[in-house]
């Protein structure tokens, strides 16, 4: 009887041990204390389950697109959270689209002539974009914004993560009173900053500029000016500088969209990264304001 009891007890300990360690074995690459924001761990089966339930939702207008869309975003380039992944990719691809103006074989409205030095960096950036479009063909080729927004909302509904919930709350934004609008914007700003994702951080200026609520992040108290134009300009530069710290500085390299846009206008910018460019182009006084906002955002 006692032996039987010991065997049962050992079995329980074994089951508990296997259960607690199994998630780690299933995901050997994921550190338990990983700082990166990975709010939900969606594995392939879960995605398949989402795909299967999708057919029953009537509001989807283009089912084929939906399927292909999921194929794009399950690669987890930036995050396992499908909505973080989608937002980051959309930002990256829209930056690429803005660079296409400099590709003379595509741009039929303007005739640009660039020096060899300029072309060196422009073509590098365009090559990077071509590869990105190839890797994410569905998102890259969905030019209908309504469909894109609809699909993104659909994805957000199918995942349960803090960002997905915040993302979905956008639909309520217009009906919120000003106080709630400010709280919402601040909550979203917290999330974007804490995401430590360079592309997500680039969404910050959009939150800061608003046609309805005034200075939601209270930047005028940081800089001591109510000049809206200056606040926006400084906030944009500060967000960019903050993003340089993440994802191997992809948003700040010499082939980043921001630097290529500057390189096109001013040859001196070609080959520089954002940090060295800011030191070169901004006055020390303006740089102090930018850094003040960077520090403020870091603590936000």
């Amino acid at each position, binding site marked *: *009887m006692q032996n*039987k009891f010991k065997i*049962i007890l050992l079995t*329980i300990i074994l*089951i*508990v041990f296997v*259960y*607690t360690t199994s*998630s780690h074995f299933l995901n050997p690459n994921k550190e338990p204390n990983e700082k990166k*924001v990975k*709010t939900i*761990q969606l594995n392939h089966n879960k995605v398949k389950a989402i795909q299967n339930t999708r057919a029953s939702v009537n509001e989807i207008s283009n089912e084929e697109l939906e399927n292909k869309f999921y194929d794009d975003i399950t690669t987890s380039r930036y995050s396992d959270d499908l909505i973080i992944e989608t937002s980051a990719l959309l930002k990256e691809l829209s930056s690429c689209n803005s660079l296409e103006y400099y*590709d003379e*074989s*595509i741009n*039929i*409205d303007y005739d640009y002539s660039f020096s060899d030095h300029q072309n060196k960096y422009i073509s590098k950036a365009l090559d990077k974009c071509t590869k990105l*479009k190839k890797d994410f*063909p569905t998102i*890259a*080729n969905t*030019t209908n914004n309504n469909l894109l927004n609809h699909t993104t909302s659909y994805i957000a509904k199918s995942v349960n993560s*803090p*960002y997905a919930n915040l993302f979905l709350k956008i639909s309520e934004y217009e009906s919120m009173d*000003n106080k709630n609008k400010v*709280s919402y914007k*601040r*909550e979203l700003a*917290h*999330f974007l900053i*804490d995401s430590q994702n360079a592309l997500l951080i680039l969404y910050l200026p959009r939150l800061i500029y608003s*046609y*309805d*609520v*005034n*200075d939601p*992040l*209270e930047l005028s*108290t*940081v*800089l*001591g*000016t*109510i*000049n*809206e*134009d*200056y606040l926006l*300009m400084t906030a944009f530069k500060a967000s960019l500088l903050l993003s340089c710290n993440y994802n191997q500085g992809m948003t700040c390299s010499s082939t980043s969209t921001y630097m290529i846009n500057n390189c096109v206008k001013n040859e001196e910018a070609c080959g520089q990264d954002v940090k060295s460019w800011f030191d*070169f*182009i*901004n*006055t020390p*006084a*303006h740089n*102090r*304001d930018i850094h003040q906002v960077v520090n*403020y955002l870091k*603590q*936000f």
Partner: protein
Amino acid sequence: MSLKKLLLIIVALIIFVLLFLNWQNKNHNVSPKTSILKNKSFTSPITIKKSATIESNNIINKIKNGSKESTESLNDLTYLKLYKMNALAGDCQPLFEISEEIISIEILNEFVDYLPLISKNRQQIPTKIQSKKLEKFINDCNDLKVQTKKFKKTINQFNRSYLQDSIKLRMQKTIALTQEEKNLKQVIKLIEEIKAKGFNLNELTLGEYSIDFTKVQQLNFSINELKTKLRQLYRENNNNIYTDNYKSLLETLRDEQDYLESLHSVNNKQISALFWKHNEQILQLIPYLNTKYATVFYEAHKQMMEVDIFYEYLISKESSPINDKLPLIKNIIAKQLDIKDKRYYDTVYQNAIDLYTCYLGADCSTDSSLIRNFCFGINAFNLGESKNIIYHEACGLTVEEFYLKHFLSSNQIEDTNRIFEYLINNYAK
């Protein structure tokens, strides 16, 4: 206890342990973000009070002791008095367009409608001082209308700026007596000549087509159609530009564009000749910047800025013979002070110019044109015009008070002061 009962208890225990672990795990997955969001306070931890810096003190002291020389006599309709009336008429123009008669104070209601759209902080109702200042402005505009009632009207009364035109007519007939008036009259005459030549120059740069206008339109239509087709093809081919179809269509487009261009001719010789004449006139403006009179500096500088924009437009034109920028004051200062970022420079340059005109003795009071524009926006009633953002904080303050306390960051003041100092050292007499 029987073995069966013991087993049942153990199974129940296992289920309980598993459920407990599962619950804990779920909580752990969501916790990092939500806890951060919950714990973070929504109120800003940083409040920086702008202290009176060395730079802002310098600007205030210099403006206080500035060379305020005004020989204006308020009673007579002197040239200077007419000049100021003309400036006010320009500000009042949007109100005059609403009503030919005396403007009713009820117009304030319209301002309230626009307020959320044009104010910095999406204000719903005007502040007390904002209403008071706007009321004063409406009264000033009405007074101006009464004052100019006996002025000879210009031929076309339906002209948008007929009041300004009749004041200008009076100005032309008024003798400039003081040195300031003489310089001001000269610079205004020069500016009118520059504007007329600039107009001709612009006409010339548009060029001519060797075919008639309807044929040009047809060709343009066909080019636009080709562009639309190309865009469509670009999307249909999944943004691929390397298809034969796309390439051949692009070639057709380029051919058509080249053909149209071949029919277009610009008389570069004529343009160059006129450009140099225009240029010479603009260079004649420079001595007027070296003045102790705020009015003269203001007019000469404003025209220089307009020319800068016009030349930039001319240079940007294809096959333009004009490729040289004038050594304009704005560009000279940027180079001297090593301010490279054009957009940033724009946020400090105009403020420094405004503060410098205050130093020279311009009206920078709480009822000045500049403050009016910040406080309630003189374009507030102009439906079609783009509206400036207005800041109620400006109402009741002087230009220097508003700029240094509210409109410029401490660091911006540093750069503004550098420009301000440069202007005093190089231009003020």
